[in-house]
């Protein structure tokens, strides 16, 4: 069974600063993917970044990067140079190659202070 745990219900960061959101997961699958989704107040689910489990290199997308620690089953998201538009709920998720079920964590609500 897959599980995803986000231990930080809420986080706050000053504009232009860096923040890290934590995520741990558990899966019995050997082939899987990990994701961070952003959900602003508009409700739309926006894919921020994804990581293939077989790749050792950490994924990056502009100001967003991950720290993928496969042995520790940890997948944290770092947001650099935070902007007001980054304020949203962030969900960590895992997708097993065999089951194709996208399993979400409980989310972290990020506030960005001007």
């Amino acid at each position: 069974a897959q599980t995803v745990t986000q231990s930080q219900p809420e986080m706050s960061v000053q504009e232009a600063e860096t923040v890290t959101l934590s995520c741990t997961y558990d899966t019995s699958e050997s082939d899987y993917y990990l994701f961070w989704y952003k959900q602003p107040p508009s409700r739309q689910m926006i894919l921020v970044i994804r990581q293939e489990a077989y790749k050792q290199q950490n994924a990056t997308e502009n100001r967003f990067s991950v720290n993928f620690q496969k042995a520790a089953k940890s997948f944290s998201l770092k947001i650099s140079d935070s902007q007001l538009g980054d304020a949203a709920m962030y969900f960590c998720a895992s997708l097993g190659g065999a089951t194709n079920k996208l399993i979400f964590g409980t989310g972290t609500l990020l506030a960005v202070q001007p």
Partner: protein
Amino acid sequence: DTAVSQTPKYLVTQMGNDKSIKCEQNLGHDTMYWYKQDSKKFLKIMFSYNNKELIINETVPNRFSPKSPDKAHLNLHINSLELGDSAVYFCASSLRVSNEKLFFGSGTQLSVL
């Protein structure tokens, strides 16, 4: 030109009613999904269809019945609505089963009074 579109965006109804939510994708994807986001923002998969065939059916009450008339459409019909059904329902699609990119619709907020 929305890739995954759901209608309606908002649905307010009385307990006991029957309602449907429609979903269409114009991406040419084979696989479609329904996810439920509860009041605590927790997202959970409900169903998945691949080429009109049901492939994932989580523990969902029988009052929920998905229907896929073709691979571009996946509708969700809910009978005898209950207060606990109030949630945001998301449709999503992916190119095929075991494809890692899911595209989400904008959600349907269902309020049962």
